[in-house]
């Protein structure tokens, strides 16, 4: 028998064809039934005109996309800051020794606090509280507070992800680095963290998916991003279709990221890299 690539078989396997057909038929029946039920519901014509109005959709989409640029600004900036702040927090928590106790306590308190408080509250408190102090120009762009709030909240989550990654690296790696004369910080920087980051890329991206969606919360402090904009046009057109359009925009931007996570996970990111020679 010739050697075959294990993942691929040549020629259709009759059993595979049969199960594919079965799957297709099952999908048609289930989803067909669901659609039939919805379309024949008594309120369907009204729902269709107010939520799925093609005219409104195409009229409002360009404006929505313009507004979405603000969301992109918010999450891209916040993501960069989150990566840095999260790593700083995780490193602070990974310093051993009694001298570093205050640092560990601080970073622990930080992650506890910002994971406990609802993100929308942090946005509110920063967005209205800090300008209220009267220390800074009251005309300061509210986007700034949105970015700071999202960064504070998500850095707490991401630092936990980093920390899990750091703790997943076998202590023998640190021992090997220390035995060569590297300090704990050097060992973290050159040996532990590079391996840890590789492992945590999938969960890190998961947190980013959450962050991207939470940019709509910044609308609560007066930033006209895509969600606030959709409220405005919805009120102007007496139609809810813009909300559905916003949903679609998020689906389009998020689903590829979700699949990137899965793809990376399959490629071995996120799984335990064999500690050289230790366990095979």
């Amino acid at each position, binding site marked *: 028998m010739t050697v075959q690539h294990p993942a691929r078989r040549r020629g259709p396997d009759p059993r595979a064809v049969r199960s594919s057909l079965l799957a297709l038929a099952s999908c048609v029946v289930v989803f067909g039934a669901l659609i039939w039920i919805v379309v024949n519901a008594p309120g369907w014509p009204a729902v269709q005109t107010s939520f799925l109005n093609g005219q409104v959709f195409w009229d409002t989409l360009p404006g929505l996309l313009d507004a979405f640029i603000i969301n992109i600004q918010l999450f891209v900036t916040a993501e960069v800051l989150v990566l840095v702040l999260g790593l700083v927090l995780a490193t602070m928590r990974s310093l051993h020794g009694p001298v570093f106790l205050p640092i560990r306590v601080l970073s622990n308190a930080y992650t506890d606090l910002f994971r406990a408080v609802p993100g929308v509250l942090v946005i509110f408190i920063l967005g209205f509280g800090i300008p209220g102090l009267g220390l800074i120009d009251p005309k300061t762009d509210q986007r700034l507070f949105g970015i700071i709030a999202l960064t504070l909240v998500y850095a707490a989550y991401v630092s936990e992800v980093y920390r899990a990654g750091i703790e997943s690296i076998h202590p023998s*790696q640190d021992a090997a680095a220390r035995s060569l004369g*590297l*300090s704990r910080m050097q060992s973290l920087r050159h040996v532990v963290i590079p391996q840890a980051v590789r492992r945590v890329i999938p969960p890190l991206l998961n947190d980013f998916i959450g962050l991207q969606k939470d940019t709509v919360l910044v609308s609560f402090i007066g930033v006209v991003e895509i969600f606030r904009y959709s409220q405005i046009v919805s009120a102007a057109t007496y139609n809810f279709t813009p909300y559905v359009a916003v949903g679609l925009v998020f689906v389009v931007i998020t689903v590829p990221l979700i699949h990137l996570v899965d793809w990376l996970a399959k490629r071995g990111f996120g799984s335990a890299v064999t500690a050289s020679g230790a366990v095979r």
Partner: protein
Amino acid sequence: MSAEASPGGDAAANGRGAPAEALRIEGLHKSFGQLEVLRGIDLVMAEHEVVCLIGASGSGKSTLLRCVNLLEPIDAGRIVVGGTEITAPGVHVDRVRQRIGIVFQAFNLFPHLSVIDNVTLAPRRVRKLPRAEAESEAAELLERFGLADKRREVPDRLSGGQQQRVAIVRALAMRPDILLLDEVTSALDPELVSEVLDVIRELAAGGMTMLIATHEMGFARDIADRIGFLDEGRILEMGPPSGILSDPHEPRTRQFLQRVLDAGRL
């Protein structure tokens, strides 16, 4: 320069006067919780001397080596390296470790770095050598141990024997005064053991001071100036290989060697 110590191990009798002391361990105690692993270790090694530690698993060999490298804090006793007490309070631990290389049973290479980066990491970050200089030093060492063509590989693509040789080169790149070898062949397939032992023989011939924990009795007989038998956290017996392996005084040593013999490892 080769020490060429006589098999009798009496390095002081080589006509050049007493050689300098490389390592002195006095009254070393170490416990893990309730378990006392080292119960008063005393050991003095001369420069260029090779001492092998034998003993059953759990007798404290690995712990002793890790203590000398300060990877484990000790509970009592003193360790003096080249005249400096490294267990004194206020000693710069990272600087001490530069002078004492250790090679582990499981290699512990850095899997995310290539061979050359594994070897040059510490010279660049600790000895602060520029990259080019560190790499040319490393290339020389890799060449010497038959690894010149592996320098761009990542560790996981090497055989166990090659990985362990890289680990030895990595330790040597810091130019240590003493090399500690912790059962460096125990994780290897039998056919890969000899290539690693050959490297260690070459180091011994070059005069490297080495403290070696090993289960390879034949190797210990060949290479050691002295062999120490560790039992329940103490060095029960110590002397030239011929004495310890052929004519041990202690019944425990005899018992251990008999078991090794029965297992066909001598």
